[in-house]
């Protein structure tokens, strides 16, 4: 691994560069770049690319510029590995990295312009998720069934009953009052 070179930006406050460093570091950690050495190198690469550009005139914060830079690095890297346009390869590349366990098996290769093992490239290119095997569509429809007596006697009544909460409440109260009336009458015979 190359030795770290000094980073001396000519514009931007040190506090802003520190914030950009932290943001890029968080982003790379979300990518499971666990090696601190490798992570530091990648952060410096990204920040150096920002520093090499002229300062922004539209007030874009350094954190945004740094993350944009690292995202651009990734898109270029994924596009090269996946051999697809950048807009297609980003998601596919991230997925490939996850499925081939790239960060665990080849911890120093992420975003490296060279030295990418062929196995890693092949595995990333082949990686895909399938929610199921190829469809083999069947027609599953209910068969005719004669439900006999039940719908004839109760179908309409039940539908009315379920659609009309007022009727339901009236019936409930009638039953309750009827029961109370019955008890009242019976206990006084």
């Amino acid at each position, binding site marked *: 691994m190359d030795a770290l070179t000094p980073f001396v930006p000519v514009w931007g406050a040190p506090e802003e560069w520190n914030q950009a460093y932290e943001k890029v570091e968080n982003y790379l950690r*979300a990518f499971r770049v666990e090696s601190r050495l490798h992570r530091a190198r990648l952060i410096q690469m990204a920040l150096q690319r920002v520093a090499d550009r002229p300062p922004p005139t539209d007030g874009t914060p350094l954190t*945004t510029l740094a993350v944009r830079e690292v995202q651009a690095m990734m898109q270029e890297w994924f596009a090269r590995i996946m051999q697809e346009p950048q807009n297609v390869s980003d998601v596919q590349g991230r997925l490939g990295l996850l499925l081939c366990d790239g960060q665990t098996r080849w911890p120093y290769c992420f975003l490296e312009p060279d030295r990418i093992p062929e196995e890693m490239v092949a595995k990333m290119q082949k990686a895909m*998720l399938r929610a199921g095997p190829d469809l083999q569509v069947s027609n599953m429809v209910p068969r005719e069934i004669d439900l006999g007596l*039940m719908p004839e006697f109760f179908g309409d009544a039940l539908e009315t009953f379920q659609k009309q909460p007022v009727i339901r409440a009236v019936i409930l109260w009638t039953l309750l009052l009827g029961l109370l009336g019955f008890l009242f009458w019976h206990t006084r015979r």
Partner: protein
Amino acid sequence: MSADSTTNTTATATNVTALIDGRRLTQRRIVFFSIMLLLATVATWIMADILWRGGLTRTELFVFTLFVPLFLLVSFGFTQALAGFWMLWRGGDAVNITRTLKENDDAPLPVTAIAIPIYNEDVSQVYEGLRIMFRSLEALGKADRFDFFILSDSNDPNKWIEEEVSWVELCKQVKGFGRIFYRHRQIPINRKSGNISDFCRRWGSRYRYMVILDADSLMSGKALVSLVRLMETNPRAGIIQTAPELIRSKTLYGRLLQFASTLYGPVFLAGMNFWQGNEGNYWGHNAIIRLAPFIEHCALPDIPGQPSATAKFMSHDYVEAALMLRSGYEVWLAYDLPGSYEGGPPSLIENARRDRRWCKGNLQHAWLLFAKGIKHTSRLHLMLGIFSYVSSLLWFLLLTAGSYQCYQEWYILPRGYDYDVGLSRLLDIGGARLALALFLFTMSLLLAPKFFSWLLAARDAQRRRRFGGMFRLCSGCLIEQIFSMLVAPVQMLFHSFFVVAIWLGLKVGWGAQKRDASGVVDWGDAIRMHALHMFAGVIGGTIAHQIHPTLFWWMSPVFAGLVLAIPFSMLLGQTEPALALARVGLLTTPQEIGVPAEVAQLERNLSAIRERIPPPERLRSDYGFMQVLLDPLVNSVHVSLLRQRHKHRGEPGEYFRALEERVLRDGPSALNRREKTALLLHPVSMSRLHQKIWLLPDSQLSPWWTMAMRQYNILTSQPETALYR
């Protein structure tokens, strides 16, 4: 597709159809139902004799009308247990589908689908169970003969993401890509049955058989292979249901259920197999299904009289079994096939929640009772399902009417029990003693199945040891009896309330089931659920005491269960008393003494997962949603899966842009579940939000996101699942 095109028709030499023909089955049923009716007739006669003291009052007639169907059920349960006891005592039933398994059968197996429909379940439990089954099949060299399908209907955004992440991780770990699939439905039409139908429509015709599992189901590789072999050997079998054993119960309630089902279950299951034979039932999981006839004949019909024209039966399993039998295929119960497990409800309250759903489902089956073409056995299964809930209401009415009748006997009517007629006169014992005899007769029938089960265990030294020895077996039975006596009245009121509420058309939710044992009951829950029970117990007890102290003492077990419902339910939902009993070997089951390898491994895996440090408290409620937006790898999994289903989905419209802005500016809590789901369904929004969250300066983001970015990476090195990292 015709059933025969996918059925192995060569293996018919030893199929079970040869073991049971229609005549033999009819003979069995005649014997079975004759015993049942004989017992019910004797009891009915005695009851009529007791009530008939020179005529029947309206109350007496009402009591008698309730008594007859209820005693028929008691008698049915006893006869079933008696038949099962007889079969097991003799060493097993010759008419048993598992007897058609050939030893050393090494015939090639067709690839079988294992479908696991889930809905906001404990993800770790589902996936660890799957991992155990996959490994178990691997050990047998049969992993390539099974494809696993996780069929998710989860609508909780966190669960959805957790399921996706876990799926990818599991596939990576077991090299299961192409063998383990994950499908998430956008709209969960018709719940679980719709979920299964969706699978059948997409992939069903690729497979000859499908094994259906529940979220907490576990099956050994051997059991899975045996099920496929049974299907191959019995080409007329449409469904083979196993009898899952309850495992991993941690609470007192769970352990009581586990003990009871393990000890008492076999006699009922063997008895069920005795009378149902090849016209069995299906319980919705831990079963294998022949897909061609299932697809062709078992699509659920609509329920008439529902507001929605496409409302389907909630409890689909009984209906599917009835339709399978109608199509000419058989449904078997492989009641002694080992290696089939499931979890049970951890508390009385959870059990009631599950019962409420099942109650509605079973009541809906009334529509099919008179359907043409349905087998009479299916009608009986449906009827038994309905009565398993309606009977509670009938018992409640019987107790109430019986108490009122006592009041009449003591205070209103001129004649009492001592007015001798019929049997009591013949036997010269008086009405009161005859009533006592009927009570003892009823109790004998209710308790005899437990005695049969105890006897089977007690006489078999090995089985006895697996329950912890004779002393622990007897103590366990006693403890279970006391608790079941106290639980029964609470269950009765729960079920009665459900039946009435459902008849009145009140809504029944489809909530996810709590299946673990962690903090399942708190005082608030217990008071809310049981306050009415306690009130009913106090009022009922007071009235009974006012009527006559004797009545009160006779009914005191019922009142005790109700009055103590709140603390009792709390006690049942706790793990400490269960652990204390387990420490001295009480309520021990054979699965605990000789723990099956799969169960032991599952326990180890889940314990290891739960020992991990959970995410910070502030992130927990939106962890999955945060993960999919923040984590570039998780985001890629989600977007890739979305792109497969929504290949041509264009730029999101104004609604989505507004949601994106809100979630960035105000954090995930600013969106409700539906809005989060909408975002999660849009691949472009998902990709864009991921980019933006990292690009935007802190000043333009909700502080929640800034905090999440800093905290997310502290613990994780792998994209682990949400709550158990």
